[in-house]
């Protein structure tokens, strides 16, 4: 009998681009970022420019719920972060480049 021709299974090399990077954030009483820690450097936040929420596939176990914030840093640079809403406010912050 000839061996079954099925090959090993896998996702065959699709690697997502633009994956978020974990970041350490100090939050205020409202749960919004008040400072960002990058190594030993503290990045001050001048203003929260925009805030929006993304919720997808809420009916699935791996549902996705994120709160995005676009921040204006003290240095004048814009930075987009999101908080994974399944984590506690202090934890689960990521930097994401659009």
């Amino acid at each position, binding site marked *: 009998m*000839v061996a079954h*021709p099925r090959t090993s299974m896998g996702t*065959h*090399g*699709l690697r*997502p681009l*633009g994956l978020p990077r974990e970041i350490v954030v100090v939050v205020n009483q409202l749960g919004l970022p008040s400072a960002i820690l990058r190594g030993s450097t503290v990045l001050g936040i001048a203003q929260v420019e925009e805030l929006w929420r993304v919720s997808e596939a809420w009916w699935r176990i791996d549902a996705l719920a994120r709160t995005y914030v676009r921040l204006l840093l003290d240095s004048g640079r814009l930075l987009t972060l999101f908080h994974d809403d399944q984590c506690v406010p202090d934890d689960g912050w990521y930097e994401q480049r659009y």
Partner: protein
Amino acid sequence: MLIACLLVPSLGLACVLAERPHLASRPVALTDMGQSRVLDCTSMAARYNIRPGLPLREATALCPSLIVVEERPARTARAAEALIEALGTVSPLVEAAAPGEVYADLRGLDGLYPRRDLLTHAILVAAPAMLRPRLGLADTRFTAAIAARAAAPGEARAVEPAEAAGFLAVQPASWLPLGTAVLERLRLFGITTIGGLAALPAHAVQAQFGTPGWRAWLAARGEDPTPLRPRPFEAERVIEVAQHEPPLIGREAVTLTVEQLLGRALRQPRAVRRFVRSVRVRATTEGDQLWERTQVLREPTGDRDRIWHAVRPLLEYAEYPGPIATLELELGGLTAESGRQSSLLDAERVRRRDQMDEMVRHLKLRYGLSPVARMVEVEPWSRIPERRWALMDYDP
């Protein structure tokens, strides 16, 4: 014994009952994906006059305690494949007549299986035990099928050529290979057993029921002329499978994956320098729903672009039943080694592409994987940035 029939009656329902055996004694109806009609039902449900084809609303009115189970075509297809493979373990000549009904030609196996019990044991051990398939062995295809139907679940029944006519004579006429309308006419004529049809003169049967009736008459006498039509040998097809966790939601991602599977399938040693006649794409959702299309090519070809040109429209206009967890691509009808005369005036672009492909092949050989990737759009509309673009291995 020349022919074996491995049978699981009502395969879709049998799969459900195999997973949930406590339902076997309850009124259960298997419905289509939209839960609009009954596809099959248990004997307990049949007592309430529930039958295949009945609208579900009527069925629940007839039996308020009816347990409704939605069909899962992918699971049924897997079970059907397992039955084919079970017979394939003893014989290379296997025909999949219908889901749950498989035949095999057993000629020439005496050396391997000198005793019949060894042969039946080999088949039944290879088959999925949960489905409790029935095995029929006989000299003709129809007799083998009836022997399988008459066998107890999980058991084998052999019918010797000399006893075939007597065995068939007492079986119900509804098992004859005839359409519903013809079977109803037989019933109105008072013919309730196969022997009743066999006892009629051949010319009378042929006059009433035409060629199908004559063939059924021959089958009823144990002289079924229907030959076995074995499926192509494994060597004539190539299968590539990709599983996805989480499942693919976007059509683009499915299309890209199939394109990559096609490239991989064409690189399999079995497909190299051979032409392809047909391509089958099967997508299975995480809920075991099935989407399947087969494209027979206008002419056999081994050219990836031409095959992709034929397959792509199927995917672009596909309506998948849900997020895709498994994708399978099969190249069928592979020809013998073939070649095509290329043009003397190949364009510069093609030459460069060939050079790059050759270089990447070298790098792959050196590093074990392709170090070159191309950027592809996956779900460009997605609100989640990491889902919009992806890198795919450039794998010529």
